[in-house]
């Protein structure tokens, strides 16, 4: 009944709007649409067009993908990106979780430690790269330190690392840089957890591990999901640190290849095609990874709910 009276009020009580007032919202929103059309949609469309046309401008469904698959270091780029994404996300995530749990406890010096732990966040990727590069060279600060404390007798050679070892090095540097940002998200999640929720579980007989597993972790789940997606996307798009510390082509990644074709060999005809195709592939991978992760983690929630 209330519905019908509501409708009556809207047709009887309010005078019919003029056609002008009806388009006002669209007029007001138009600048945003235009902005997106010009600066986002247009480049995306032209990029996609590049991916599906050959050098002569004729349509080709898989031609450029074939070109990419046969190009130098394609397999390495795919494998390295996959390895990087999996290892770095797991490593950074576990490290951040431990740090977050430790630092959200109240103890003397917790604030100072938190401050120190967040320093890497404030350093730009370029500076990070320089910091580590100066450390990793033969007479860099890492070798100097190790020699000083007599942990090694001969300087270690880091920069000659190749293949997986080189990727591992990039992973470690990346971990140093981004762990704090994951940690912050988790600490924010932990702060949303009331102390009494843990205490309640404790009084009902849960031990420390059960409290963590049954109470803390599930309540943290939304922040965990957010931080993992963010890290996953960033990990798939890794390139700056790899290039700045190791140089081009030493640790090939998907996005590193894009930069390579745009930056290093821009003159070659196929470079543009390859760069666009790599971009397209990376976008698809990021989308897929996100969708799959969301599906999996959502299923976990539902299952947990049903089980109990």
């Amino acid at each position, binding site marked *: 009944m209330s519905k019908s009276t509501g409708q009556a009020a809207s047709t009887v009580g309010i005078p019919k709007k003029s056609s002008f007032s009806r388009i006002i919202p669209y007029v007001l929103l138009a600048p945003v649409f235009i902005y997106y059309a010009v600066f986002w949609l247009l480049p995306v469309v032209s990029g996609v067009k590049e991916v599906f046309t050959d050098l002569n401008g004729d349509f080709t469904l898989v031609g450029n993908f074939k070109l990419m698959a046969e190009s130098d270091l394609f397999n390495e780029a795919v494998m390295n990106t996959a390895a990087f994404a999996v290892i770095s996300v797991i490593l950074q995530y576990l490290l951040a979780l431990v740090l977050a749990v430790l630092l959200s406890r109240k103890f003397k010096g917790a604030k100072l430690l938190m401050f120190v732990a967040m320093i890497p966040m404030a350093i730009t990727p370029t500076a990070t790269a320089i910091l580590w590069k100066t450390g990793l060279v033969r007479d860099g600060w890492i070798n100097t330190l190790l020699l000083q404390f007599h942990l090694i007798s001969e300087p270690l050679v880091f920069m000659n690392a190749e293949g997986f070892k080189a990727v591992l090095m990039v992973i470690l540097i990346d971990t140093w840089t981004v762990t704090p940002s994951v940690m912050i998200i988790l600490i924010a999640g932990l702060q949303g957890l*009331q102390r*009494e929720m843990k*205490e309640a*579980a404790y*009084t*009902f*007989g849960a031990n420390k591990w059960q409290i963590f597993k049954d109470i803390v972790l*599930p*309540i943290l789940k939304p922040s965990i999901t957010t931080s993992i997606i963010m890290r996953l996307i960033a990990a798939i798009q890794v390139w700056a640190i790899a290039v700045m510390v190791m140089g081009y082509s030493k640790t090939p990644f998907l996005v590193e290849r894009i930069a390579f074709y745009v930056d290093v060999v821009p003159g070659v005809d196929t470079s543009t095609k390859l760069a666009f195709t790599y971009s397209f592939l990376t976008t698809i991978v990021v989308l897929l990874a996100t969708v799959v992760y969301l599906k999996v983690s959502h299923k976990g929630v539902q299952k947990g709910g049903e089980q*109990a």
Partner: protein
Amino acid sequence: MSYLEIRNLQKKYTKNGPMIVNNMNLSIEKGEFIVFLGPSGCGKTTTIRMISGLEEVTGGDICIEGESILAKKPKERGVSMIFQSYAIWPHMTVFDNIAYPLKLQNVPREEIRRRVETAAAATDIQGLLKRYPAQMSGGQRQRVAVSRAIVVEPKLFLMDEPLSNLDAKLRVSMRTELKNIHNKLGATSIFVTHDQAEAMSLADRIVVMYKGNIEQIGTPMEVYQDSATRFVAEFIGTPPTNFFMTSIERTEEGVQAVGDGFCYQVPVGLTDTLLPYAGRKIEMGVRPEYIEISPGLDRTEGYLTDVDIRFVEPQGSHSILIAKVGATEIKIHTTKYMDIAAGSRVSLNVKEGRVMFFDCDTGKRVK
């Protein structure tokens, strides 16, 4: 031997810090509803947390059924706690919230189901078992917390200000319901609050605490009508007891308490007790409803003085009158002269047998 015995219980958080709970002694019988009442920082929550096992004990002992529980973990103590913030877990359904304590005890599935349903029925939330806490109101969440506390069939219910997050109306109906559940289960409960109305309406006995000490243990009527200390007389009752600084003087007509702007004839029953205070200061207290006013300026045995009524605050069922005796502002609770006009001159007479005297140094009642 009482059901719960607290002996010389002490708590300090730091070695040289203040005593948060100072040599507390208390015996509770099975089936009692005990309320710890006091202002924040009086040690009431700390005490309940020591009983639950969430807080270490600095000294003394706590026994349930004659057995010390200090060395036991919370779950072995047979207590269950209801928290101020409800502390129900947001990622679990109502069913799971109530079932979790039983799962921790490895109770068989079928029994869990049966016991959860019984506990949910006791608080009238059978229909909400599949919901998540975010889909419920504050009152419903508190019912979940109560069900969860019931389901483990504890020896002792500990409630830490469980109603203070609810709105005023719900608080009143929920407290009746808590008392009802307590009675139905035949439970033994300790309830912590700073709200004296809540304490009065729930408790079999109230433990009034202040600065880590027990000021008085007694039924709601006892602590109100027969307050043991100045603090209790002031803390319990709205408006609080009126206090007058007086000095005890011996005159030809007997013993008098002489204050700023009045001279009160001490009742015969109290003269012997007050004589040792002759020539010294002593504080006199009278509850607002025991000061009777007489617009006809009649004087009785308990005559204080004549005053002008300064303000009248009608409350519907009664009125609060505000006046000044000397420099002291006093409040009078009247149901007889609710329509009296501000500015009226009246006589004040203390109702027979309703005067209280408190030692100025110790704050203790002199009687």
